[in-house]
């Protein structure tokens, strides 16, 4: 994966430059990486559904190279869903002497990390992942705790029900010596709205004014309305979905 088609965020160790997750608080949100402590990384890329369906991709975090390297970070969120993913991550905090790590292995290494939240149901998975050299389960049960004695506590597939009823899943959550926390791949979602964000006046098929949106008026998961053929087997007229994407004007 190259830089083509993706964005970069500029962050510096110890300096918080990006907007914080608490800024607005859409019901559904996601971020790929967040750190607090000696190394601070604002949730990046952070997306929520304040403006409807949103997606972001980041291929570079300008933290010092000896602390962290990555392939790509992705996050997307919309009505009733959120997902984040990380490819090719390596975090080594040995260069922060106050943490006292001195590990011969990276603190975290992973080929891929994903967190997925769909209609209030959360899941996560990892591939080729390790913490301090300890290999991690591909799909650990919710809230699987791993202790690295004297060093770090790790929670895999961390799942939390929030006060507003939404669910947050964090694929890997690490705390080091009470001085550093690191959250990798997080997704928060609610159940999808009943109306699925339908417009007030659904468009009709050209030359077909029956106004039937394919007989698919529900808020079925995995794609919302307009995900079924109509009774004649024809593709449905799409329902515009609130969202934001900067196209090439």
């Amino acid at each position, binding site marked *: 994966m190259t830089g083509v088609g993706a964005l970069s965020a500029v962050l510096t160790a110890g300096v918080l430059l990006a907007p914080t997750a608490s800024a607005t608080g859409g019901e559904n949100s996601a971020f790929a990486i967040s750190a607090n402590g000696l190394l601070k990384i604002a949730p990046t890329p952070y997306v929520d559904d304040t403006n409807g369906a949103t997606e972001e991709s980041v291929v570079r975090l300008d933290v010092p190279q000896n602390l962290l390297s990555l392939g790509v970070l992705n996050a997307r969120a919309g009505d009733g869903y959120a997902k984040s993913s990380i490819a090719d991550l390596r975090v080594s905090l040995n260069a922060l002497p106050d943490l006292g790590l001195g590990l011969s292995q990276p603190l975290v290494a992973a080929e*891929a990390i994903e967190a997925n939240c769909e209609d209030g149901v959360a899941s996560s998975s990892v591939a080729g992942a390790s913490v301090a050299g300890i290999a991690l389960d591909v799909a650990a049960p919710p809230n699987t705790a791993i202790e690295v004695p004297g060093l770090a506590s790790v929670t895999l597939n961390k799942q939390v029900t929030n006060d507003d009823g939404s669910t947050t899943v964090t694929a890997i959550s690490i705390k080091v010596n009470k001085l550093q926390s690191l959250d990798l791949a997080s997704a928060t979602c609610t159940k999808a709205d009943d109306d699925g964000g339908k417009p007030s006046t659904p468009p009709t098929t050209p030359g077909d004014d029956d106004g039937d949106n394919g007989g698919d008026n529900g808020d079925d998961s995995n794609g919302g309305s307009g995900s079924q053929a109509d009774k004649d087997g024809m593709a449905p007229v799409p329902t515009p979905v609130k969202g934001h994407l900067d196209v090439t004007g």
Partner: protein
Amino acid sequence: MDRSGTSRALGRKRSARLLAVASAALLAFLVSACGGGEEQNTVQPSAVSQEDLTRLPDATTYGDLADAPLDPGAAPTGQVLHPKKDLVVYKAVNGEPFAKLPTRQMGSPTWVPVIATQGEWAQVLLPTRPNGASGWIHAGDSDVESARNNFVVNVNREAFELEITEDGKSLGKWTIGIGKDEHPTPEGRAYIIASIEETVNDYSPIVLPLSFHSDSHETFGGGPGTVGIHTWPDDSFVGQANSDGCIRVTQEALDELVKLPLGTVVNIV
């Protein structure tokens, strides 16, 4: 679709999964025992472990699948597919997995045009870079919703013209605006990936992002350089090449375009 074939397929798929050893190599796949020859219809997808599935990048407009097979330009089939769950995308029938196709694109249900079929397999166009990216999915009834789509959009950049056809018959033609010389609207077979009721940009109430991306803008605004169809607040674009790659249309044309199913092919010449 052959429903009985599908159930057999699933049974074998489960068995294969049980036997599959989580491999560190993405390229690893199992060769189906019934592959090839006259039994192509029953070729089943190679088992993909959850670990390998996690490794596969999502095929969205933000993706870049440099290894994707390119659109061979075969005659359109008029079929579109909606994945009911994240589907593995393969380089060929029972070939190497290289991506997963999510159920949504920018909040809309994913619908992809089918450009070739082989048994229960379908070659579909993908919404990622590079332009013309395609891949094969196993399109059994449990995996996908299938539908007919007889609409096609033809864009002629030289004539600044956009035409909607149904079953080959013209439903209307409109004069449009296209990308300026330094940021041309890319040529080829694209498709409509989503229908966005735009909440931030105010130049068009609805934006129809296409599967194609600008060759000259790696990114644009906060997006990945996606080429879209949309209207514009004034008529300064009509018959002009002055956009950054998007196809600008009149409100009258947009009113018809938004009725087209997702997955509708947009041929840009």
